[in-house]
């Protein structure tokens, strides 16, 4: 009898799995950018040809609440042009009007700056309750302190972050690697690049692509090492790249930066997606130093042991086994990497078995694990675009602008490409780079802002319709850093446990919403939220109602939201 029941239940599950997703439950997005008044085009080098590699990378995007009004604002990094700079091209800060539109607040915020901007990451480095910004450049990174009055002050030199030589800052992330309550800063560097010595397009074997003369590199150009700055308090940082072991990994082409506790030891590790070279995993040794273990950990190469051209990176527990996995975007002809954490911070590239091997036509950049349909399983979005505009018209199908790819997570076992059903916001080609994930209209469905090269940004608004529930968790550190970066939250509903961490940086050169989003499926209540703060303190919040935004302060408990008042 029991056996028969078990068989019936298996059959029912199988039938459910085979049943096509109803049309109204499919993942859907619309691009709201024109209506939201996000219309300024990003400038990034030549539009028809690109003479130098520096014209091919940047443009990060950030979702952050810079004015603490509970609504996500947007920051977009801009580039420049050769031979003459583009003075009108500046980074942009857009304030959320809370009605689906945004207002350009760049000038008032003092964030007007032109140059070859690359990435952006956020974090409250001085623990004053206002989110600060760090922007990377080819030509000198910039730290902005949020004054709390709608304006930022540029404090790079005062903070000890002014570079002594020309470097190409790329990805970045604030993290508290020594867990002292102060946010430190990690910066990846891409190529040792100088216009004076840069080779000309077509001038060597690394300057040709599919028979076309294109800009040279990164192969053939000198690689770089990464930087770690320790926050000394009083708003200053000290370069600890050497003593921490970070700079021991040399001659890499560093791009996307991802932090996370990949071995569940309570200390943040650092992953760097490298272009053309092995990607790096710096394991935190808990004594102020890191050991680079990417190859043995199985997340440096693809399934054939080959270095892919890593660009963007995201972390998430897509199979809900309690360990953070890594998603990494790569160049065309290379499958996306899905490094499944097998426990203890070791990985295997599970992309082929999980359905991520099929799309090899696009050059991937920004990416994210996000539960777009709130079913409790992390879906994935990858934004694409080629690096060579010269391809347009040269060979059919190989355009500079490329569609995005949206994957639906099928119960942690595989990903299904649902791009074609998700609407023109996904399928319309663009030369996308940075992508930030967050819920800009606080409706419980995750949205995405994308920085497009030579185009206006995209604001993908989720229009997925179903009855699934959700929760957004905002954390405030007290002993820990105020942004709570590095805090891990476990969300327990019934027998299902999800995990995520507050993170600075990630995707491609971008900053996601600090608030953690959990899709709850049919569950109307969360049984337990367990927060492991960077300080080491563990806090439990019980019986929270679904479909709300809650705020938890370290030590004090629930600040806002509806949960069981019992501690």
């Amino acid at each position, binding site marked *: 009898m029991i056996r028969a029941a078990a068989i019936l239940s298996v059959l029912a599950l199988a039938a459910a799995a085979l049943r096509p997703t109803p049309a109204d439950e499919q993942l859907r997005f619309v691009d709201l950018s024109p209506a939201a008044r996000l219309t300024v085009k990003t400038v990034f080098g030549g539009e028809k040809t690109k003479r130098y590699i520096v014209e091919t990378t940047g443009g990060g995007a950030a979702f952050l609440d810079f004015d603490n009004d509970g609504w996500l604002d947007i920051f977009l990094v801009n580039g420049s042009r050769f031979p003459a700079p583009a003075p009108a091209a500046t980074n942009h800060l857009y304030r959320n009007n809370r009605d689906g539109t945004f207002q350009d607040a760049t000038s008032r915020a003092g964030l007007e700056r032109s140059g070859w901007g690359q990435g952006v990451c956020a974090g409250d480095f001085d623990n004053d309750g206002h989110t600060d910004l760090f922007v990377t450049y080819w030509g000198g990174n910039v730290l902005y302190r949020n004054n709390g009055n709608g304006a930022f002050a540029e404090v790079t030199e005062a903070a000890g972050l002014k570079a002594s030589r020309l470097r190409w800052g790329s990805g970045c992330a604030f993290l508290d690697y020594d867990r002292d309550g102060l946010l430190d800063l990690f910066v990846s560097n891409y190529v040792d690049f100088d216009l004076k010595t840069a*080779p*000309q397009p077509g*001038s*060597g*074997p*690394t300057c*040709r*692509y*599919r*028979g076309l003369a294109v800009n040279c590199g990164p*192969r*053939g150009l000198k690689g770089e090492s990464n930087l770690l700055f320790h926050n000394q308090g009083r708003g200053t940082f000290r370069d600890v790249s050497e003593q921490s072991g970070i700079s021991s990994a040399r001659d890499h082409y560093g791009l996307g930066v991802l932090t996370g506790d990949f071995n569940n030891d309570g200390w943040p590790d650092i992953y760097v997606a490298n272009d053309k070279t092995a990607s790096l995993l710096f394991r935190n040794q808990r004594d102020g130093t890191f050991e680079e273990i990417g*190859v*043995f950990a*199985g997340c440096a*190469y693809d*399934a*054939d*042991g*080959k270095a892919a051209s890593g660009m963007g990176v995201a972390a998430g527990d897509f199979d809900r086994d309690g360990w953070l996995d890594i998603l990494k975007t790569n160049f065309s*002809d290379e*499958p996306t990497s899905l490094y499944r954490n*097998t426990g203890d911070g*070791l990985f*295997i590239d*599970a992309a*082929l*078995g*999980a*359905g991520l*091997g*099929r799309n*090899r*036509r696009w050059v991937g950049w920004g990416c994210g694990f996000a539960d777009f349909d709130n079913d409790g399983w992390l879906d994935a979005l990858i934004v694409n675009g080629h690096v060579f505009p010269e391809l347009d018209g040269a*060979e*059919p*199908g*190989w355009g500079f602008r490329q569609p995005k790819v949206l994957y639906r997570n099928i119960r942690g076992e*595989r990903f299904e490409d649902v791009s074609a059903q998700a609407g023109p916001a996904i399928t319309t080609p663009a030369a996308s780079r940075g992508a930030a994930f967050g819920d800009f209209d606080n409706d419980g469905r995750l949205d995405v802002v994308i920085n497009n090269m030579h185009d206006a940004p995209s604001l993908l608004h989720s229009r997925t319709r179903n009855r699934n529930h959700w929760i957004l968790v905002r954390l405030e550190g007290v002993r820990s850093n105020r942004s709570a970066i590095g805090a891990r939250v476990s969300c327990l509903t019934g027998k299902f446990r999800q995990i995520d961490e507050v993170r600075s940086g990630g995707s491609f050169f971008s900053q996601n919403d600090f608030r953690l989003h959990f899709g709850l499926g049919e569950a109307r209540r969360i049984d337990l939220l367990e927060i492991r703060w960077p300080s080491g303190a563990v806090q439990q919040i019980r019986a929270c109602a679904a479909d709300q935004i809650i705020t938890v302060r370290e030590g004090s408990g629930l600040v806002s939201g509806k949960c069981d008042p019992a501690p």
Partner: protein
Amino acid sequence: MAFLQCARAWLLCAVALAAQTKEAQQQGDLETAARELQNAIQLNPADAEAHGRLGMVYRRLGRLTEAIGLLERSVRLEENARVKVLLAFTYIDAGRRREAIPLLAASWDAESKPSLQAAVGQRLIECYLETGQPEQALAVAQKLRQMAPQDPDVLYLASKVYMNLWNGAFQQMLSQDPGSHQVRLILAEGLEAQDRFAEAANEYRQILKTQPKLPGIHYQLGRMILRSDASAGADEKALAEFRQELEHSPLNVGALAEIGEIHLRRSQLEAAAREFSRAVELQPGYVPARVGMAKVRIAQKQWSQALEQLEPAAQAAPAEEAVAYNLMIAYRALGRAADAKRAFDTFQRLKQQNQQKRSAVLKGLAPP
């Protein structure tokens, strides 16, 4: 002055003259050396060494016709292998390579000093190539490569020989039947080497118009489609070509492995395993199929079954990075730490070696 003194006792003076000549030669005073040597020859017209030395001086002075005459006479007066080599080199300077060849060939066979033999061999290759005898040049080049496998001059000459042979064969093929499928094959392979995959695919399509069952062509076309076609249906088109290939050539393990890879990318693990397994059955030493099969088993977390493929692959191809890498992953998953560390070390060593080779090539080809 020296001549007048020597007229009285020519034998003694010949010795003195030789010393003066050497000194003059060493000082670079070639005209003086020439005069002294002419005097010596006048004193002793049978002095082979003086003829040889004067020939050498004239060669350095650019008086090649006179140098050749003197060197020929020196050789006639007295057999001397080194003078013969000098004569050969002078023939080459004068553009008389055919005459140089027998002298160089004899020296190449007889010379015991490796550095001199290498120098002779290199000039001999040049002569053979210039006189349209690339096959003879090939034999010398191959032996030279054994003698000095790292020598850039030797490698340069060897490349020239191979290119010359390639050009010769291709020209002949072209002149006999410019539209033949063999000509198109060569064109396609050349285009592929330049990453011009779409054009290479077109060449294969042209071949198939006249030779639809020619073994290997559907397989190559499938490969080019995968590399060039950015359309959503590219995998399907390639798959169709690989399947057609197998209809005509069921033993083509490359086509089987490519089909396996397409299934693998689509997460059709069992279908992939079937193709890889068939390829391994046909050719147990075909490493790409074993690696493909291992990747399937790793995706299924069947670590021991992955090892069943990887361990023989490591024996068949110890320098294959993909094998060492997946061995590390499988051993690691099985908790065989020492084996995993060994595979890791092997992989790192191979990676470093290959990277050094690639860097050297890139450095060499980089613009100044």
